[in-house]
């Protein structure tokens, strides 16, 4: 008998990591270690570029693995394992970024130019890149540092969507599931992320130069109003 369209997708048949997680659910510790080994680099890559600090990324990655372990008893495969894992990672990271943002509000005075939203700061970052005329070519490490700063300057949701797309090669559908947004919202979010990135990096790409002083990152500012998507 042919399968019908309404039959649920069997992730356990198609995703070996789902099968490993089901073994974890059944109490297999070795299966959990295998999952950690398979995902630790991928998770750290996303989290390190998301929060901008290696030590915090490691703490968050361990928190994500702990949550996976705690959730083992009620695990039901309703998505690819990676999508489920990065859903947890997104929640953990966003909470951490917002906690950092709140702490920062207490201790750091307002910037003198009064700008308080990410897009404005992105504009300033882009203008600053155009205004300076440095004299030497970028070294590879400097280039990496500059790209890191550009990524940090993106609002957190744009950054997350961008990183999942770039480093995980996730489809819009999977990113939408991980970030609990609609596919159209992800399409819009990624478009703005890539345009913002282009605005910041184009001067470097075209001139191969780096400004002497980048404005402070907007990484941990509150999300701008234009990020409130209709999802």
């Amino acid at each position, binding site marked *: 008998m042919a399968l019908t369209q309404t039959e649920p997708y069997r992730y356990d048949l198609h995703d070996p990591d789902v099968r490993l997680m089901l073994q974890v659910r059944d109490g297999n*510790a070795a299966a*959990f*270690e295998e999952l*950690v*080994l398979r995902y*630790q*680099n*991928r998770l*750290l*890559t996303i989290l*390190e*570029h998301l929060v901008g600090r*290696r030590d915090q*990324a*490691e703490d968050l*990655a*361990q928190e994500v*693995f*702990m949550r996976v*372990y*705690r959730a083992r008893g009620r695990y039901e495969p309703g998505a690819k394992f990676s999508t489920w894992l990065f859903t947890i990672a997104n929640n953990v990271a966003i909470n951490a970024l917002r906690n950092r943002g709140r702490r920062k509000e207490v201790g750091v005075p307002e910037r003198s130019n009064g700008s308080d939203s990410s897009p404005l700061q992105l504009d300033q970052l882009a203008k600053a890149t155009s205004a300076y005329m440095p004299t030497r070519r970028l070294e*590879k490490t400097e*280039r*990496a540092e500059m*790209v*890191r700063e550009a*990524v940090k300057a993106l609002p957190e949701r744009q950054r997350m969507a*961008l990183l999942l*797309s*770039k*480093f995980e090669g996730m*489809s*819009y559908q999977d990113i939408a599931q991980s970030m609990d947004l609609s596919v159209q919202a992800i*399409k*819009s979010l*990624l*478009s*703005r992320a*890539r*345009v913002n*990135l*282009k605005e*910041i*990096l*184009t001067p*470097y*790409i075209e001139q191969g130069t780096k400004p002497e002083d980048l404005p402070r990152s907007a990484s941990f500012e509150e999300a701008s109003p234009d990020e409130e998507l209709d999802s």
Partner: protein
Amino acid sequence: MTDDHTTLTTAEAIDEQLVAYLDGELDDAAAAHVERRLADDATFRARLVQLQQAWDMLDTLGPADADESFTHSTMAMVAVKAQEDATAQNQMVRTRRWLAWAGASALTLAAACAGYVLVRSQLEQPNRELVRDLPVIERVDDYRAIESVEFLQRLEKEGLFAAEVEDVR
């Protein structure tokens, strides 16, 4: 109704379409439309190149590499968590056993009390009946001499028992 492919008028819509094209997220018809426009429109083409170049620069970031200590500390944390879970589970089992024992004891005690009260009540029932019937028992010989209740009531109306009624009062 306008075709979705012919409404790429705003910069934002154009960027969305170009990014979706670069990400391979357009269907065949939409991708073909973008490709036709790329062939015809130098500005459109330049925009695509800029977006792609910025995207390619992300390659300089590279993947993170977890060292062995990270794996070990993660597994150690999980082992501690598993131990805590097991301890909590044992504690819960002990608590449940204690509650079950306490509940059974309380039920047994309650049943014993109820049984005692019931038995005592049953045992006292004949005595209560004797006390209640005592006035009749004391005069049972007199009552046997009476032919009927109506006859007795008639005598009472005639004042024959006035002294006894007065004593009772």
